[in-house]
């Protein structure tokens, strides 16, 4: 772990790994799309719209996963003063917010043909909506201070408060949803688990994951370069 603690070494490794990441991501997307759009059958009940599930469900998974990454980075920065913790949190957060946005958009498009409305207040989609606001708050806080390190620390505390709250929020939203269950059950039902469904789902999830790791490396490199630039500018200013 400590080998990666050196930002310069990390940046070098990331730069070397990026092309491989891009290639792997592209490969997985091609495979995933082929499975999702061609090689899997339409659902008995939902017809072709079930194909939206293959881009929606993995996006929701990644939205949650990336928030855990942000919280882990924040914890390592706050508790162990790991030099890359803040960098990873700052770099990952916008990616997570985008996955959340994708989950919301595709969720809406999935719900409309099935339920006739552009938004369904089902437990999962509502939790994702709250998660979206948690991401926005995190990103806003990162940029709210003149001194980047202050923003990083405040955002880190917020991320930890958020990750502690997330199970509570999920539990509350689930409870709220069952309490207010309308007469016709409005839930984005997943069709019964079938191997022909599992394959595209997992491959798309893999594609999203590869995308995340690759883009994270790119964004971390940017953060490290920006930090170096700031240090240079500060040194120049100090020189006179």
């Amino acid at each position: 772990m400590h080998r990666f603690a050196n930002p310069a070494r990390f940046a070098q490794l990331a730069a070397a790994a990026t092309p491989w990441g891009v290639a792997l991501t592209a490969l997985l997307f091609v495979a995933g799309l082929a499975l999702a759009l061609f090689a899997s059958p339409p659902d008995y009940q939902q017809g072709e719209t079930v194909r939206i599930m293959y881009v929606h469900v993995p996006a929701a998974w990644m939205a949650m996963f990336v928030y855990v990454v942000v919280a882990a980075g924040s914890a390592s920065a706050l508790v162990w003063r790991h030099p890359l913790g803040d960098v990873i949190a700052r770099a990952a957060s916008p990616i997570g917010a985008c996955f959340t946005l994708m989950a919301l958009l595709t969720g809406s498009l999935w719900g409309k043909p099935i339920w006739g409305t552009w938004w369904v207040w089902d437990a999962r989609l509502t939790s994702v909506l709250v998660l979206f606001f948690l991401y926005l708050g995190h990103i806003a806080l990162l940029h709210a201070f003149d001194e980047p390190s202050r923003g990083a620390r405040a955002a880190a505390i917020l991320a930890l408060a958020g990750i502690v709250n997330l199970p509570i929020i999920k539990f509350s939203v689930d409870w709220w949803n069952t309490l207010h269950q309308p007469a016709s059950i409005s839930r984005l039902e997943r069709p019964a688990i079938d191997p022909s469904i599992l394959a595209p789902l997992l491959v798309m999830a893999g594609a999203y994951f590869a995308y995340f790791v690759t883009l994270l490396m790119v964004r971390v490199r940017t953060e490290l370069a920006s930090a170096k630039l700031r240090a240079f500018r500060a040194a120049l200013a100090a020189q006179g």
Partner: protein
Amino acid sequence: MSGILRFLEMGGHGGFVWGAYAAVALVLLVLGLISWLDLKRSEGELKRMEARLPGRSRPVGARNRA
């Protein structure tokens, strides 16, 4: 030809299915592009900065190799 048309129509829900895939593609590509451009810009600035300060491999106060 009709096979392709049927595929594009997605059982009448073509707008939704392709809309969803298009939304995903758009978000992923825009985010990727912005991140890539940001990287090129800051690495470019860094190179120019390092060229302006010859004989100094890293700024004062930066972390030394562990």
